[in-house]
């Protein structure tokens, strides 16, 4: 089929029970990713960016109820089970989490961790799994790979261990890699290094990437498109360069102007108030309470994510504000 999306998320909602009452975490998330696309999902705490990733991975917490649909190559991922789910979790998607120490078994060697998926799920012999893993470690820039395979996670630095997790995610050659804040716990020089590895591997393998981060600049550096989330919804989605120069949503513009920067004006423009989780969001636009442009209509009705392709915004005043917002980010 022509133009078939690799991943399609349609009006996804996720609700978790808290103290017996349902609490919405995601309200309305729609995203689309073609093969080889790189999409960044950017947001602050509680925006739902990690929950979106978990919904794609079919790793939602116990008791979660969902609405909407997540399709991978046209198949509803909610209907996968047994072998098809295992296939999805190996050749379909690979995952890199923020804290490798929390996701790599501390009492097993790096070699065991890396070869397990290849021998148990893909049916490789131990010898060919070892060979593939040595090759992978070289590709992600880990020297002395032979020795590393015999070591345990505590013997590796955070940066090296994160590269091990990237190697593990790449091992079954997935079509989509989901990286959830993979460098947030790392030093800045190590971050640059790990992100460079991710970027190279994505391009060489022609793999699709979803990169979750709170850093708009990091997002733009490696992803063609950026989606900004707030209170469990996508509020803007554009090409990353456009988003930085011509933001369509007041939240994006405000977030851009509250970043500390190395150049330009040396005053910061904070956003008043604090980010809201979806369950605390009011009736109308969730950002209205912090938005300098909000009017009565904004507070009364919730805007949908609309616009021409690659220029999507969930703001009732997008059209009249776009010049103001462009000016606001160019002055800062």
């Amino acid at each position, binding site marked *: 089929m022509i133009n078939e999306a690799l991943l399609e998320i349609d009006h996804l909602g996720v609700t978790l029970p808290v103290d017996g009452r349902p609490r919405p975490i995601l309200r309305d998330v729609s995203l689309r990713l073609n093969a080889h696309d790189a999409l960044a999902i950017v947001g602050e705490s509680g925006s739902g960016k990690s929950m979106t990733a978990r919904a794609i991975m079919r790793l939602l917490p116990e008791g979660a109820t969902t609405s909407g649909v997540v399709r991978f190559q046209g198949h509803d991922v909610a209907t996968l089970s047994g072998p098809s789910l295992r296939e999805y979790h190996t050749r379909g998607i690979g995952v890199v989490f923020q804290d490798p120490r929390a996701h790599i078994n501390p009492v097993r060697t790096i070699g065991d961790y890396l070869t397990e998926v290849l021998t148990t799920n893909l049916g490789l012999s131990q010898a060919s799994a070892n060979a593939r893993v040595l090759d992978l470690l070289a590709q992600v820039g880990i020297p002395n790979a032979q020795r590393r395979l015999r070591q345990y996670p505590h013997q590796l*630095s955070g*940066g090296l261990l994160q590269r091990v997790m990237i190697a593990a995610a790449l091992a079954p050659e997935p079509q989509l890699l989901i990286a959830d804040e993979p460098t947030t716990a790392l030093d800045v020089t190590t971050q640059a*290094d790990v*992100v460079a590895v991710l970027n190279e591997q994505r391009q060489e393998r022609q793999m699709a990437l979803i990169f979750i981060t709170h850093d708009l600049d990091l997002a733009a550096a490696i992803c063609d498109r950026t989606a900004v989330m707030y209170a469990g919804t996508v509020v803007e989605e554009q090409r990353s360069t456009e988003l930085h120069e011509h933001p369509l949503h007041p939240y994006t513009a405000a977030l851009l102007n509250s970043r500390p920067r190395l150049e330009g004006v040396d*005053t*910061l423009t*904070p956003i008043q108030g604090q980010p809201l989780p979806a369950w605390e969001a009011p009736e109308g636009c969730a950002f209205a309470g912090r938005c300098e442009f909000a009017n009565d209509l904004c507070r009364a009705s919730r805007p949908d994510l609309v616009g021409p392709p690659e220029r999507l915004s969930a703001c009732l005043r997008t059209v009249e504000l776009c010049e103001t917002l462009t000016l606001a980010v160019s002055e800062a």
Partner: protein
Amino acid sequence: MSPPIVSVNQLRKVYSVRSGLGKRVDMVAVDGVSFDLAPGGSLGIVGESGSGKTTIARILVGLERATSGQITIAGHRHTEGRVGDRERRRRGQAIQIVFQDPFTSLDPRQSVAGALDEALRIKGGSTPVSRRARMAQLLSQVGLDQAFERAHPRALSGGQRQRVAIARALAVEPSVLVLDEPTSALDVSIQAQVLELLIAIRRETGIAYLFISHDLAVVRHVTDRVLVMREGKVVEEGSTADVLHAPKQPYTQLLLDSIPRSGWTPKRQPEEVSGATQRALSSSRP
């Protein structure tokens, strides 16, 4: 020129750690660091994990003891050996600290009023009435409504907690505030609020800051001088503007080049650099 409010000379801290084989080995966390902080000035100490920046902060406020070196704060030279209660109290009035994680630095059982009242009582020379007045003043100084007085930390967001921690540190009217990564745990929009608050407080009170951070962009906004540290040593020192715009050391340049910004593409580090950083990392994890 008035004498520095903080003067540190040849500070050294050596930890004895057990190596894999049970042998004790020395790990030098801070290696001959000297600097001055002018009254009302703001000095940034920047470095990656294992650079020794937090160890310096902890030594200055008395949470760690230096192996050697001289520290003078507000005209008082720190003596070696055990520190008595009176001396500790006197130092506490000169220098205070705000920690990175507002989720662990406040007592969960103590209300905001309780935390502030305790700090004010330690300062001494106050009555319940004068303390209440001062408490109201502190809360407004950090931009919190009076209603927060009765709140406990669990009811507060990260940014609000950090404001309480700042108010508590300001309660004794110290001449120096050590800020150890005070905004690293906060969201971007909240980080900007707290940084702007810190800038305003220094402008209004003339307090001096020692600002510990891994983030050069943050340091640019809140400091006028900066030390760049690596593996316990000072690599570069100068006015913040000079260091950021015309760095003299390759390591400073590397740090700057690693920060994502418009038009930036990530590059793999040369082997030598990542090797050294990695050694520093593994040695900082005993």
